[in-house]
Structure formats: C-alpha cells, structure tokens
C-alpha cells in the first residue's frame, strides 16, 4: 500500500461536506425571516457611512485639532454638486467612469494586489516551465501571414486606445493588456515574429516599479499611501485625473507584457532566449 493513498480520509471528507451541506439546508426547514435584510439595516443610513461623513485625512485632522466633537458630522450631508461634462473642475478624482474611480482610487490597494497576483502567476509559470523543452508549431500558411499582418496593428491600436481612455470610457488597463497580448499571440503564430522575452520582462518589472513608486509618493504629498496628489482637471477631457491616467497606462503596458511573456513561454519555452 502506498502512503499517499489515504482512502479513509476521502470518506471522511465526503462525510464532512455532507454535514456542512445539511447545516446549510437546516434554516430552510425552520421558521424565520429568510434571506431578508433586517429592519434596522434597510435604511441606508444604518448601513455604511453612518458614522462618517468625512473622507479625507487632512479634514479629520483639522476637526480633531479644533474640538473632539464628531457628533455634528454624523449625518450624511448632501454635498454632491451637479457635475457637468467639460465644465466641472477639481472634483474628487475627476474620472468620468465611475468604475475606474472605484477601482483605482477608492480601492487602489486591492488593484495593486490583483496586479501582483497576475505578476506572480506569470513568474511561477516561467519558473516551472523553464526546464522543459517544447515541440515546434507547424509553418503558417500564406493566408495566415497576410491576415495577421493586416489585423495586428489595429489590435495594438485598440489596446492602447482602451488603456488611455480608461478614465473616460469602459475598459481600462487589464482588458487593454489582454488585447495587446492577443495581438502579440497572433504575430507569434501567424508571421513568426520572434520577440525577446527578456525585453518584455524589463518593461513589465519597470512598469510595476513605477506604479508602486507613484503610489508611495502619495505618502509625501497627501499623507497616505495611494493618495491622489496630481491635479484632477476638467471632467470628460483626455488629460484629466492625471494620476489615474498614468497608473492605468502603466498597468496596461505591464499586463500586456506579462501575458505576452506567458504566451511565449507556453509556445516554445524560455530556451530560445538567453535567460
């Protein structure tokens, strides 16, 4: 008998899952409210942001220095002004796309984490696959070569457009990087365009380095990591919300380079390259 075959364990695992499943089903057979929100929570004030109407660190420091009374600031004041495209200036983060302002400003730290998830998985791919050798693909036909040469520049153009307009229209760095990587895949299969993995890695790690550097500069200017310190400009213009524009461009470059490295490594290993 081998040691790794632990069949009793499988049996108990099944039993355990069954017990958990029964636990999950148990509320169905008892009287209760079901999956409803409680009365106290149906009022939006009792959910988030009841305790805070202050959002900025500097603002709270000012109030703390004046007096320690927070009770005045309890209520959610309707401070939202009407926003007009092309006219409103110096808004909170100046993006026209709401999703982008959440992804890169309110929860920028999470996006940084997701960036690192992608980075580390491609790194793991190159670490594991670097010792293997690969069989070659067959030669591309004439039709493939012509089609790819026609399509690829447009795909790269679309990718660049999407990450440059991440703060104005849907999209952003991640899908733009995926589109750029698809373009490089086409050029790899179609016309044997043999790009070097080491150059792409250089772009990738430099882009990641600058993203973190820009985020860390926030410590100096605003007093908190990932704070927005560049002028936000006029809503709806291309050169608005400068920090988000710069970070999204870097993210697009980084994701594109990363996924291209992954595809190249899966295509013919790292062996063609020196390192």
């Amino acid at each position, binding site marked *: 008998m081998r040691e790794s075959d632990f069949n009793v364990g499988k049996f108990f695992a099944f039993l355990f899952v069954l017990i958990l499943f029964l636990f999950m089903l148990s509320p169905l057979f008892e009287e209760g409210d079901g999956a409803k929100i409680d009365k106290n929570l149906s009022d939006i004030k009792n959910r988030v942001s009841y305790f805070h109407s202050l959002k900025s660190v500097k603002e709270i420091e000012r109030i703390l220095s004046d007096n320690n009374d927070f009770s005045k600031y309890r209520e959610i004041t309707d401070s939202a002004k009407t926003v007009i495209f092309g006219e409103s200036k110096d808004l909170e983060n100046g993006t026209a*796309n709401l*999703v*982008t302002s959440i992804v890169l400003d309110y929860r920028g730290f999470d996006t940084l984490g997701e960036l690192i998830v992608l980075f580390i998985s491609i790194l793991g791919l190159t670490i594991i696959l670097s010792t293997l050798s*690969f*069989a070659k693909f067959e030669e591309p036909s004439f039709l493939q070569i012509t089609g790819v040469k026609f399509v690829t520049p447009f795909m790269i153009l679309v990718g660049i457009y*999407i990450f440059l307009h991440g703060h104005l229209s*849907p*999209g*952003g760095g*991640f*899908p733009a990087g*995926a*589109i750029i*990587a*698809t373009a490089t*895949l086409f050029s790899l299969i179609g016309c044997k365009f043999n790009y070097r993995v080491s150059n792409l890695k250089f772009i990738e790690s430099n882009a990641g380095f600058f993203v973190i550097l820009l985020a860390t500069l926030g410590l100096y200017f605003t007093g908190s990591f990932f704070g927005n310190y560049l002028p936000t400009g006029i809503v709806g213009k291309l050169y608005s919300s400068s920090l988000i524009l710069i970070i999204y461009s870097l993210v697009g470059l980084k994701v594109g380079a990363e*996924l291209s490295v*992954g*595809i190249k490594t*899966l*295509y013919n290993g790292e062996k063609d390259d020196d390192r």
Partner: protein
Amino acid sequence: MIFWIFIFIFILSIISSIVSITAKDLLYSVLSLSLLSLLTSILFFILNAPDVAITEAAVGAALTTVIFIFGIRRTEREDK
C-alpha cells in the same frame, strides 16, 4: 424583446457548459467554454456592466482558450 434575447442566451450558455463537461474531445470542450464566456460577456453588457463585459470577452474568450489549447498540445487530446 430583450427578455427573449436573455432566455435565448441563457439556454445557449447552459448547452455550451454541458457540452464542455461531457465532450470526450478536449478541444471541443475548450471551444465551448470559450463560447460560454462570450455569451456571459453579452449578458454582462445587457446588465449595464460594460467594464466587466470587455474584460470577460478579452480574457475569457480569447486568452484562456489559447492557454488551454497550448496545454492540450503538451498533453493528450482525448479524455480518458
């Protein structure tokens, strides 16, 4: 009208997911998986989430399919 499009996409996506599970040939299974994510991206678009739709179309339909196909090339095409 939009309701019937919804129902059509739902049925199509369920069929493609069943095909991707049951297909003996792994290539067919991967292709139907890619069809599934394309349909999901249309659903996201109808539900007013264009950001998610673009990402799903670019990543789910294009890139993961390619990675799966590279994986199938390294191993065997038939499921046992």
